[in-house]
Structure formats: C-alpha cells, structure tokens
C-alpha cells in the first residue's frame, strides 16, 4: 500500500480447487498489507506465475485435478516457507466428501470434458505432493488466525480446544436422551450445546477460532481438525473421545452417537474426517499446526 518498498518480503497465494473463502478471510486481515509485497494471488493480482524468490507461499484449496498438481509442484520450488491454509489444502476438505465409490463413479462418468484439466479420483491434500512448513486449518481460518500464521504476533493465544473459547456452561443435570438434528429445536443461550443434545465436537477440535459457530448457537463441525491431544494419533482415537464425551455428559445411547459419527453420510459435516479417517498419510506433528 502507501509507501510500499520493493524490499518487503515477497508473498504469494496459490489457489487450488476450493471456494476462495480462505482468500476472502485473508483480505479481511488488513495488518499484513504493509508488511509484505503481494506478488501473486489470482483473485487480487493480475500475474500468472509465482516468482522464484518468494518468501512466504500460502496454499489454499485441494488438489482436485492434474493442473492443480502441476501448479503446486512448480510453485513451491524456490519458496522459503510453505503454509497450507484451510480444510481443503490440509485434508481435501468438503470436496473430499466425494471420496466414496458410488460418488466417484457417478462423478467421473459425468465429468469428461475436452481440453480441460483432468479430474483426479479424489481431492488430495497439499502434503500428498509437497512438503509443508506450517498447517493453518479452518474452514476458513479467521483473519486473526491468518495474522498469527503470517506475523506470529507475541500476544496471540489460543485455547487447546474450542470449548475453551466458547463460554457456554456445561451442566451436570441436563442429560438429553437423543441427538437433535442440527437445525431442529431451540438453542438455549449460554448452555453447552452437547447438554442440549446437539452433536457438537468442540471438545476435541483445536481452538483458536474463538468459537464463532458455537457462540452463534451452531454446533462445532470440527473444521479446525483435531486438537493437539489427538492430531498425532489415528482418527479412531478422536472419534472414541467424542463418544466418551457424550457418554459422560448425556444419556444418548452410544449406538446413536456411533452411527452419527461413523456412517459416511452422517459424518459428512465433519469433513476433516475424510482425511483423518485412516489411510497411510504422514503424521503431521503438532508443532507444525497452528
């Protein structure tokens, strides 16, 4: 912006297949404007290649087609610090809900086009192709989280889990017998959504988002992924923990929770699961996740 000098570190944003929500969130975080020289970000800048000497590269979106894979591998070649942002880049995201045989078949048979990038069988996370220095999960990460990732401000503090930032009270004597649908029923203010029978996974989801969903009365869908206690473990451990929380706080039959968490349709909203649910993906160490 005003007074921008060429000495500022070069900053680029590679957009793969996604919704641009991460970019929109980044634009709302204004503090970086004066600290970086934005050299590549197709949403904002008319420049069609990532220059060679980029200091920080943010990658949003998942690898959905062969062009995404090509652009990704080219972009990271001479970058100091690679940051994967958002659920799509980190776990394949909401798009990866389509990683089911029935959907894949329907999808691929319907989607053949001449001279267009070829779709891959599933949406891959960025680290299936390149090394990542920092993961910033969230759908999308809030502007505050973007600033924490880019500028590492000394006063940034985040709770370990979403509950630590939610402010709703957990009650011992309010024990629902069945799960409520997301949209069904009245939401009481100030009282824990689990106590009210909503399938909220804030107890094991990493904090830092300031609990914007649960404070607005919507159950946490886990978009920030597992907290540090679970991130280096298999997804089964995360799921078991959510089940135990419900057993402790509610009288909902454990089969009901189990079905809700494990059936491919019902667990769709927990889209981080699509990647954390097994496979032979590399473990992401908690030091690398903001």
């Amino acid at each position, binding site marked *: 912006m*005003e007074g921008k000098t060429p000495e500022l570190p070069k900053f680029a944003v590679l957009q793969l297949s*996604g919704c641009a929500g991460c970019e929109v969130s980044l634009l709302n975080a*204004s503090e970086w404007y004066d600290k970086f020289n934005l050299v590549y970000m197709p949403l904002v800048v008319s420049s069609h290649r990532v220059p060679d000497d980029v200091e920080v590269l943010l990658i949003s979106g998942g690898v*959905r087609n062969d062009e995404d894979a090509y652009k990704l591998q080219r972009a990271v070649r001479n970058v100091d610090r690679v940051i994967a942002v958002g659920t799509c880049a980190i776990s394949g995201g909401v798009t990866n809900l389509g990683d089911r045989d029935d959907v894949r078949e329907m999808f691929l048979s319907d989607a053949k086009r001449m001279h267009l990038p070829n779709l891959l069988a599933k949406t891959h996370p960025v680290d299936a192709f390149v090394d990542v220095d920092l993961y910033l999960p969230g759908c999308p990460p809030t502007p505050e989280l973007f600033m924490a990732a880019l500028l590492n401000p000394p006063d940034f503090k985040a709770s370990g889990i979403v509950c630590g930032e939610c402010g709703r009270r957990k009650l011992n004597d309010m024990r629902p017998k069945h799960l409520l649908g997301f949209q*069904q*029923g009245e939401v009481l203010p100030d009282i824990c959504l689990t106590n009210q029978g909503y399938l909220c996974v804030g107890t094991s989801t990493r904090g830092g988002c300031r609990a914007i969903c649960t404070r607005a*009365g919507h159950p946490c869908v886990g978009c920030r992924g597992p907290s540090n206690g679970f991130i280096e473990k298999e997804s089964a451990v995360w799921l078991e923990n959510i089940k135990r929380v419900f057993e402790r706080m509610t009288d909902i039959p454990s089969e009901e929770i189990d079905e809700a968490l494990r059936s491919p349709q019902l667990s769709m909203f927990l889209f981080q699961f699509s990647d954390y649910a097994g496979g032979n993906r590399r473990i992401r160490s908690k030091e690398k996740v903001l």
Partner: protein
Amino acid sequence: MTTLTFPLSRIEGHARVVIETEGGEVLSAQFQAVELRGFRHFVQGTPAEQMPVIVPRICGVCSTAHHVASVKALENVFGITPPELACKIREVLLLGQLIQNQATSLFIFTMPDRVNVESLFHVDETEASRAHQFSIAQRALKVRKIGTDLITLAGGQFIHPVKAHIGGMAGGITREVADRMLVDLKEMLPVACELFDAYWEMSMTLRDRIGTWGDDEPTYYISATNSVKPHFNSGHLRVLSPEGDEKVKFTPEEFEKQIEFKETEYSYAGQTSYQGNILRANSLARINMTNEFGTGCADGYLKRFREAFGRPAHAILFFDLCRGIELVYAMERAIEMLSDDLNYMDPDIPYKPQDGIGYGLVEAPRGPLIHRYVVENGRIADAQFIIPTVHNMLAIERALNVVAKRYIHSDHINLELEKAVGRVVRAFDPCIACATQ
C-alpha cells in the same frame, strides 16, 4: 488456425478464454470454466438438514446467498413459512453480501483495469489516485469490510454463516448491536460514494481511451428483484426483453419451463437461455428492472446513470457502474433496516421434517440463485444448484466475440485484446466456483 488462450485473474475461481482465429477471422470465443468439485454428486445421501452447513462451501465469496437459498429450499420441502422478522434479518444478511461483493468487484477486481495496474494495491501509485489526496486502496478495503461486518452481525460469521435456520433465524438483532453497526455504516457511506465518484471518473477516462463502453447487441435480462426498493430475499423471477418490457414473471418452481439449460463439452459450467435467446443477469439486469431504489444517494446515481445511458442500457462496462449504484443502495437500505426494531419477536418457528421437493430462491449479487432439493427419508436424493453466473455464460461469449473482432485483424492482433478480454469477463463478475460447484 491460431488459438489464443487467456488465463484470467481478478475473478472468483479458475477460468480461461480461448479464441480461435484464422486469417483475421474470429472463428470462436469460448469462456472455459476449468474446475469442478462435484457438490451435486457428493451431497446425495446427506441428511437434508445439514445442507445449510455444507452448501455455503460451494463458494466463499457467495456463501451467504447459498446459506439462505438452502434454508429456503428446505422450508419449501417441509411446508413452513418463517416469521416476518426472520425474512427481514435474511434481507440484512443479503445486503451485507451485496456490499461485500460489489465492493470487491468494483475495487479489487475492476478498478486496476481503469488505471492500468496489476492490483488494487498498486492503485495508489497512479496519477488518477494522486489527484485524490487519499489512499483509495485503504478506503476501498474498509468499505468492503463493512459488508463482511454486516454478514457477521446477522449470520454469525462472514464466510460460511450459520444463523439462518430452517424455520427462521437463530436470533434477532438487539438495539445495542444494531446501533454499533449503524455508526460504522453511516461513517462509510460517504466514503463509498466518494470512491464510486472516483471510479466513475476513471471509467469515463477508460471509455475515452478505448472509444467504447463495450458495444454488443441488446439481450434479455433475468433477475429476482422487484422494481421499487429491491428485495434480495425474493420469491419471483422476471425476464425483461431487450426493449425493456417484462416478458414473464415466474416462481422458482416454474424455472425449468421458462429457462433452458445445457452443458457444453469445453467447460465444466453449463449455459442457460430464454426461448433460445441470450440472457444477462447481475447488476445491469437489476438496474434495468429498477424503477426506484427509494433511498436518496442511490436514486441520485440511478438518475445520473439513466440520463447518461438510457433505459434499458446494454453496454458491457455499464455492469460495473451499476455495481457502484447497488453498493450505495445496499448501504443505505441496511441503515434503514437496522434503524428499525429487529428484535421484536422470536424469529424462529418449530418444524417437522418431511419428504418432498423444494425450491429456495434468492437474488445473489450475481443474479438469481435457486437451490432445488429432492428429499427422501430425510436424505438428499437429488440437489440442483441453478447458478447466476450460468445465466451469463452465453452473453459473456458473445461479448468476447465482439472484442475479438475488434482487435484481431488480418495482418495483426492488437494486444489491447488481452486487456479487453479481462475487462469483458470482469464486467460480468463471474463466479466459477459457483458455476461449476
């Protein structure tokens, strides 16, 4: 034959323009959407009530419109009518979306074209900006942020909002919260007008340089807004003839009867038409259908626009000017709405889920958006997303043909073509993530 490929930037999503030419003759101009994620497929089997959480992820720029359309489609399936207050708060949400979007399109996407720079961040280095003695970029981003703040206020968060519920809204807007927002909106309204005036001047300069506002044949127009004090939380669509007559007014249920849709083999996005005719949606369509805004500044700009360009107006770059008028209207209308009591009743009613078919319509910033769901056993059996950008596909291609003919000659190609391609596409403000899902 020569094939020219233009990658596109400063639009939402991944697309390119491919022009084929031989001996100076333009054979074709294609607008290709090159991404696809497959929402229509993977939402099949989803519990219907989860749709308002999943579908905003179709697009982070338009997430509010998808959120509201989804809730309305499910209310239609379940046969319920939300309380009046919920409808008002949804309108506030959609106004926030309009402010955010029109500010983004005006300042981040298209202003750099007017002063020949790569991005908004370079606008302040130009002669056009120095004349104004203030940072255009900083002010523009502040105006845009007012839109996101308004979405946060009514929707819980500004990307992928959560507060529209089947049966209403998660809560009213208290006086205290509304008053805080009003202070900011009132502070930013004159700033938005000042920026739009600067934008208008830059556009005149551009017009003088290139000698056109983007000439193309007149088309039909489609919008879901009404003629006076436009609503965006709407119930009907209208089609306007090139002469400006209302041809038809219809509900989203009648959509398939009125509008034809087809896929193409060179793009992941489809195209729509009206009785075989090219359609246009977005700002120019709405302005051509608006008699009056009912708010002072916006009506002032509308009068100025009409006196200069007539009604209906058809040139391509008018889309951009119309977006500025709408930015001002959305801010003024939001001030009006937040000045009223938006906390006078419970904005949510109970409902019982049932199976069936439902339609949800809103006027999104880019035009009418319809979600159509078939619900069986509480799960989504089929979902269709009828996307505003898709209504503009044929119009974009015809306009690209016009610029291609203008700048491609038998002995040379004027490289202004590259800029012209960008200007034409950006005037329509296409959203590729939405168009392909």
